[in-house]
């Protein structure tokens, strides 16, 4: 006898199966359509550009589960089993349908291969499910939630797979085909059963399995399982080029398609919570909570039926006041399997809050007032901006006809904060010593717009952009170097077609070393560790330059902290948090960081950002590490090795 599988064996009322299948399929399609409809209504732009790069990335990320494996093999393996188990069974079912309705081809050895593949698929799915249950309920991994939805989804799937195998076993027990060994799981179960029991039980269990499986398909869009559709959609959309906003549209930013797909695709895996520095110190914010709150809010606003997820987590009432906690450190994007940029969505929601006005924290209002009136968030004075350079002989580009090759854009914090001013003094000294022809903008230097942008003051940001561009063009400035990674990032990535080239000082120092324009006079026999500023590292992928500069200094030993490079921990000063101290809780992010630096045994913690410098310097004092650890800017270290001062 040729190996094959009889279809609808022992089943009556086959028409009922078709009706139920149609209902399930209809519900599934309706659910998916509802999502697309909500996205279309809520998105500022609903355009899905074709991009070969995005297709490739989606396929690779989805099929291999690359982002799920990243940094978490156990979770990756679980996802791999579930994904491939599910996919094999899904494709197998399609093939079986084709075999039945189109042309019978699953016979003979092809059938045996098919049988075995389905068996392996089911086993993988089951194994993946058991692993998932183990991780969530026995191992109790903190980032995994245990809501009703989480329990229902996994239990339902277990029942589908289990009933499938039992039904198969019943059939095997009765038929005992000689090729049964190919369906090894079903065969094992079959061997445990008697023929008479299987014959009477089979039709009932077949219907149970069918109902569970069809029901499962129907609930996909109405639970977190929507990520089956949403995740690949998010992978694709996040990797297509963003629709550039027309100037008149840039005034109020609203969510775009990529954000919306991301909110709906989120599986609540909690990787973002694990890396979020704000959540890490126990502040009442976590990216996942924000994403869930946004998802719910959008459904309540744009769908006439409200939220379609019948087991939703419910309302996050306080999200409006919690959006100010995010430091925009970008750590969540590093780990999100579907490239969800929560901090970008936060920025957009802040813009909405700023325009509305009534939910802006008072302390932030004061900072913004200062920023508007005095062009800096620190002091009610424009004049004092150049005070740090008083005793230095520097060229003021706004007062000279002299040609210079480089404009040193000092930035607000470096100009006004007494600790951060050391960055400017050291860097100017280094440039002078290296014979670089450069100048500063003195008290006419404006704010680059970083803070306004980060806290959502779009109108002010654009005024500051215009003011900067005008000033640069008035004085013919084409090359700019910044103290702050924040100014650098804003110039580099957020100015519309900037007609000037911006670099961060670490890049300039690196160039000076490569071009041998810098000479170290001193051997520094110290151990140091380097803290990656978010806007230099994660945002602009400048990880190596500062480290190479450090290593070039004779005698120095560089050790790494547990978190470094793309995993670096935020100092807590970004995203406007520097000026909102009242959001700080009992523990500060900077204190966590300074302890990690201390644990390396290094004597000096080096950083390359004025905000990090201030935050870490403060944390050093509040953590009682004043005697054991020093915090220095890279410029200070380099200047020291070049012979300025005698502090090490």
């Amino acid at each position: 006898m040729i190996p094959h599988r009889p279809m609808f064996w022992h089943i009556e009322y086959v028409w009922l199966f078709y009706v139920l299948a149609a209902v399930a399929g209809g519900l599934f399609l309706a659910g998916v359509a509802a999502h697309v409809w909500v996205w279309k209504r809520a998105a500022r732009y609903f355009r899905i550009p074709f991009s070969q790069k995005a297709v490739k990335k989606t396929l690779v990320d989805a099929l291999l589960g690359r982002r799920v494996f990243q940094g978490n093999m156990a979770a990756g393996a679980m996802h791999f089993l579930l994904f491939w188990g599910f996919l094999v069974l899904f494709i197998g079912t399609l093939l079986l349908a084709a075999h039945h309705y189109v042309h019978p081809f699953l016979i003979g050895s092809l059938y045996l291969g098919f049988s075995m593949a389905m068996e392996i698929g089911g086993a993988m799915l089951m194994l993946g499910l058991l692993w998932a249950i183990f991780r969530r309920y026995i191992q109790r991994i903190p980032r995994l939630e245990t809501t009703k939805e989480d329990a229902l989804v996994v239990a339902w799937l277990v029942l589908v797979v289990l009933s499938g195998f039992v039904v198969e076993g019943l059939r095997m027990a009765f038929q005992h085909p000689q090729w049964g060994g190919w369906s090894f799981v079903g065969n094992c179960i079959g061997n445990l059963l008697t023929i008479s029991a299987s014959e009477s039980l089979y039709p009932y269990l077949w219907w149970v399995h069918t109902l569970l499986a069809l029901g499962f398909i129907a609930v996909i869009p109405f639970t977190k399982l929507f990520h089956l559709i949403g995740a690949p959609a998010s992978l694709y959309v996040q990797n297509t080029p963003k629709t550039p906003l027309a100037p008149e549209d840039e005034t109020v930013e609203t969510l775009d398609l990529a954000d919306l797909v991301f909110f709906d695709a989120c599986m609540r895996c909690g990787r973002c919570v694990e890396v979020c520095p704000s959540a890490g110190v126990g502040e009442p914010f976590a990216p996942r909570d924000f994403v869930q709150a946004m998802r719910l809010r959008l459904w309540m606003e744009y769908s006439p039926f409200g939220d379609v997820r019948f087991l939703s987590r419910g309302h996050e009432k306080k999200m409006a006041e919690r959006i100010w906690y995010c430091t925009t450190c970008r750590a969540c994007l590093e780990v999100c399997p579907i490239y969800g940029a929560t901090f970008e969505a936060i920025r957009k929601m802040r813009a909405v809050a700023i325009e509305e006005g009534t939910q802006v924290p008072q302390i932030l209002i004061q900072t913004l007032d200062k920023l508007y009136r005095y062009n800096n968030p620190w002091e009610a004075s424009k004049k004092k901006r150049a005070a740090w350079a008083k005793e230095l002989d520097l060229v003021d580009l706004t007062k000279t006809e002299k040609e210079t090759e480089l404009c040193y854009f000092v930035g607000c914090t470096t100009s006004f904060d007494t600790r951060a001013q050391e960055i400017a003094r050291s860097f100017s000294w280094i440039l002078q010593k290296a014979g670089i022809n450069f100048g500063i903008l003195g008290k006419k230097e404006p704010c680059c717009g970083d803070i306004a942008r980060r806290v959502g003051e779009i109108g002010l940001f654009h005024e500051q952009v215009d003011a900067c561009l005008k000033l640069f063009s008035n004085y013919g400035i084409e090359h700019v170097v910044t103290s702050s990674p924040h100014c650098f990032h804003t110039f580099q990535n957020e100015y519309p077609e900037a007609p000037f080239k911006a670099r961060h000082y670490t890049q300039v120092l690196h160039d000076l070393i490569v071009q041998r324009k810098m000479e170290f006079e001193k051997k520094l026999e110290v151990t140091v560790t380097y803290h990656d500023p978010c806007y230099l590292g994660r945002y602009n992928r400048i990880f190596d330059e500062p480290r190479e500069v450090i290593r070039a200094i004779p005698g120095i030993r560089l050790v790494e902290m547990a978190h470094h490079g793309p995993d670096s921990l935020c100092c807590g000063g970004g995203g406007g948090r520097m000026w909102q101290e009242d959001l700080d809780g009992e523990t500060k992010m900077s204190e966590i960081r300074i302890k990690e630096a201390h644990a390396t045994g290094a004597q000096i913690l080096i950083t390359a950002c004025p905000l990090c410098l201030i935050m870490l310097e403060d944390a050093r004092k509040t953590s009682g590490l004043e005697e054991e650890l020093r915090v220095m800017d890279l410029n200070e270290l380099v200047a020291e090795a070049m012979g300025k001062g005698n502090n090490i």
Partner: protein
Amino acid sequence: MNIVVCIKQVPEVTDAELEITKDGTDIDKEDLEMSINEWDNYAVEEAVRIKEAHGGKVTVVTLGDEDAEDVLRRALAMGADEAILIDEEDFEGSDAVGIAKGLYAAVKDLDFDLLFTGVQSSDDAWGQVGLLMAEWLELPFASLAVKIELGQGKALVQRELEANTLEQVELPLPAAVTIQTGINEPRYVSIMGIRKVRNIEIQQRTAGDLGLSDMEIGEQGSHVAQRRLSLPEEGEGAEILTGSLDEICERAAQIIRDRGGVA
């Protein structure tokens, strides 16, 4: 519920280094940033909140030069509906009474239920304008309001008195109230918010339009003349530390230790 709010533009002096003008009657405002008087900001916010809850419209009035348009635009961005700018030209040298006359003349024919002013202005701090207007308009009046509730044809106003005591008074409408800081949390006014109201017309008035003669306002119409303004002199026991930051800190720490500030 229609509300009129009188507001004023004042110089920001909190962190500024103040200088007295040569004739000694005023501070040099040349390099100072101007903004809305703090009390008035609370008054506008309170008016807008009442409007948002009960409907009606909010009209803001100021007396100042053309730059004072900024505070009117700001109030419009907060949610006010109309704005009136009284040209300060003929009011030069006016005392609080002169200013109040100008505002009174602009307001008296408007249809309103509540008249708000700040308790005082941060620059001259006479604290008279609200009271004077209430008197001339023959309106019931409450000062130092820290809470306002509206009932049928009346307003329940909580007044802030000494030593944290509160007094609740009931005023039949229309009424005049001066607003104390802290009555609410004024909303943020964004740059775009201000841009959005740039096309709202601001009604211009001169002293002439308002039927005020030179005898009533300006120096001639004032009872009080400003004679001299001076910065406080360094008194006994005060010491201003100079030098680098480190030296200043060192010296300050020394003083605290010497006087037994830390054990």
